[in-house]
């Protein structure tokens, strides 16, 4: 092989290494459900996470003075209390699939950004769903 090509490959490898060590790892945002969190709690502490699940009925509390939103996110088996700074994007309903971007702090989840899963084909899950089904539902309704 000619030195030119070897040089080219080295440059590409160096660029790849720079990316991987220089930020790709830290900027990976895991997408998990509450059950998956409880399986490996330490892994997800204090790093950005996207937590997906269904908003549990009767748990949504919105304080319009402090703009704090609290609710319980469930995947049918495990539940996690979520506190979200800022308003929900008004578009927030119980029993709805949501993805919250944020971090775990202690036992609750601090959300920065809340994405509601909406689509024409969206259907609210029935009772008794498994975490896998919830996860699939959330992934499929984009």
């Amino acid at each position, binding site marked *: 092989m000619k030195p030119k090509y070897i040089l080219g490959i080295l440059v*590409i490898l160096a660029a790849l290494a720079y990316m991987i060590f220089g930020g790709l790892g830290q900027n*990976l945002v*895991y997408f998990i459900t509450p059950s998956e969190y409880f399986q490996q709690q330490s892994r997800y502490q204090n790093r950005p996470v996207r937590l997906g699940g269904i908003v549990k009925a009767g748990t949504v509390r*919105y304080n319009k003075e402090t703009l704090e939103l609290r609710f319980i996110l469930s995947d049918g088996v495990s539940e996690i209390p979520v506190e979200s700074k800022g308003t929900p994007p*008004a578009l927030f309903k119980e029993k709805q699939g949501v993805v919250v971007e944020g971090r775990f702090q202690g036992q609750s989840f601090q959300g920065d950004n809340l994405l509601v899963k909406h689509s024409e084909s969206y259907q609210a899950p029935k009772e008794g769903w498994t975490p896998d089904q919830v996860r699939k539902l959330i*992934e499929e309704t*984009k």
Partner: protein
Amino acid sequence: MTPGLLGGFSLVAALLFSVIGLGLCFFAYFQRDGRYLEAAKRTSGLALLAALAAFGALEWALLTDDFSVQYVALHHSSTSPLWVKLVTPWAALEGSILLWATLQTLYTWIVSWRVHTRGLPGGKNGLDPYRAPIALGVLFTVQVFFFAVMVFLAHPFNAVIPPPTEGPGPNPLLQNHWMMAVHPVLMYLGFVGFSVPFAYAVAAMITRRYQSWVHETRWWTMIAWGFLTAGKMAGAWWSYEVLGWGGYWAWDPVENASFLPWLLATAFLHTSMVQERRGLLRSWNFSLVILTFVATFFMTFLTRSGVIQSVHAFGEGPVGPVFLAFLLSVAFVSFYLLSRVSSEVKDVGEVRLLSREGALLGGAILFTVLTFVVLVGTVWPLVVEALNGAKVSVGAPFFNQMAAPFGVFMLLLMGIGPVLPWRQSKPQVIRNLLILLAVLLIGTLASLIWGWTLGVSLAVGLFLYNLAAVGLMVDQGVRERARSLGISAARALADLAVTNKRRFGSHIVHVGVALGCLAIAFSQAYRVEAQKTLYIGETWKKVGLEVRLLDLRQVQEPNRIATIAVVDVRGTSRQGLWAEGQYRPRLNVYPVMNQPLPSPSVKYTLGNDYYFILQQFGQDERGLWATVRVIVTPLVLWLWVAGMIMVLGTLYILWPSGLRAPAKAPGGATA
């Protein structure tokens, strides 16, 4: 005759004509017979007519609310406004592919005008009978692919039995802003445009005539690049106006995927000039045009396969893998053809670092590396999932961190590149470089002293540096011409602007790019936001504004119910300059969605943009209340201006004129 019948029939006809056209190209190539080529030319016209009939049939079905067509039943509602009905063909998968395919038949037909069926090419940029069957054949192959996908996998005219009486309408995000009518069309016009240089390149590799294709397709490249730039700007603007987060670029996987062909095309645009002028970088040009073309399909694979989460994703289906298979085969065949002739396309001259071609090559390398970085970041979640099964996404900070240094290098090269002469540096150039360097340093330092952040100061310095570079070049050209011809400076400027449109146009585009980078730097660094719940009549002072909630009202519209907050705003400090006025942010509820969609109210000013969003509303014992969020972002307006300048510069280059300078013979060419 029903729309479904006409559509289904036309699709099959378009597929047949494309297959026949491809077959005729084969015969024309192997039999060396111009009559086959003549027939292939005619077939491209027939395929266009069939495609237009199919597209017309879809519009017909939408406009007459024909819910027996599945696409209409799933993505249309009889209550939508007329413009929404007209743009619904590209609101979902099948219609988008139909639009794409129709544009492809249009471009193939236009290419066929250039084909000469006998003898050597007459006229300018003609396609001779040796290359024409291959170039047309490549375009017919692409058409066959699209129409086969529609006929066999994603048929826009599948019937529903029994037909429903009403449909849900297109995705509300698409109905919320008229920009959605133009963004996809512009993108597809750009994507399809790259098929033409690609087809010429394949013909060049097979017939072993490596030089002329770049020159012959430069207009196509410019047109496609212009459309893609306009399309990306329209998409960013739509995101800003509709998604209600006050941003314009989120490094969403599909944004990234459509960024890749733009980056590669930009690299190709620049290396192709080196080949035109000096006959160098030929293997670069072949590789870049192949990659650009392949990248246009990559985006469709990502959006349609469901492998990646994105606001653009239309859901899973068999279409994604088929696109992946197609793009991989195209890449494999093309690079095989290139490897076959690699020893012949090798460059005969050398590229010096400090020369025009050196800077152009440097720019191309920069764009290619960024393409690679964005590609890796975009598909990294797939790699992680394959390795340990975890679902991850790559955050925007990674891309920002990677793109910022790239932007600095790009702006540096963009300034000096056009100042450097071809082949090798001359002494007087050193003086110009020193002037530019001084402008850069002074601009950056002055901005730092003024108190701006390092990134913003650098952006200001680089902006001034680029303006100075363009100023220097125009000034020198004008002086020389005025002196040698003894005419006034204004006259010389007008002459140059007409005779050297390509150079002037590129100056315009470059000023647009520098301005855009400045706007991005300021809007990223100095954005402020605040939010509060207000009762009617209540006043709130924050971020230099005095905000007063006047009213909260509900309006019933044909396709939606809107809640509108009427907000009165006055500026109380410099930050609130020009903010004065009434804002009406709204929440639109579309019956098909189970939650409302915010529609922000934005005031664009030359300084700050004032962006109001209605977040939440309700009523309690104190009365009606609304949670209002305000985002103040500087210089966003200039990003749209920059986009328009870039497109205008491209148009300026493309604008036909009788005074065009005679084409220069490519130096060192062995065509």
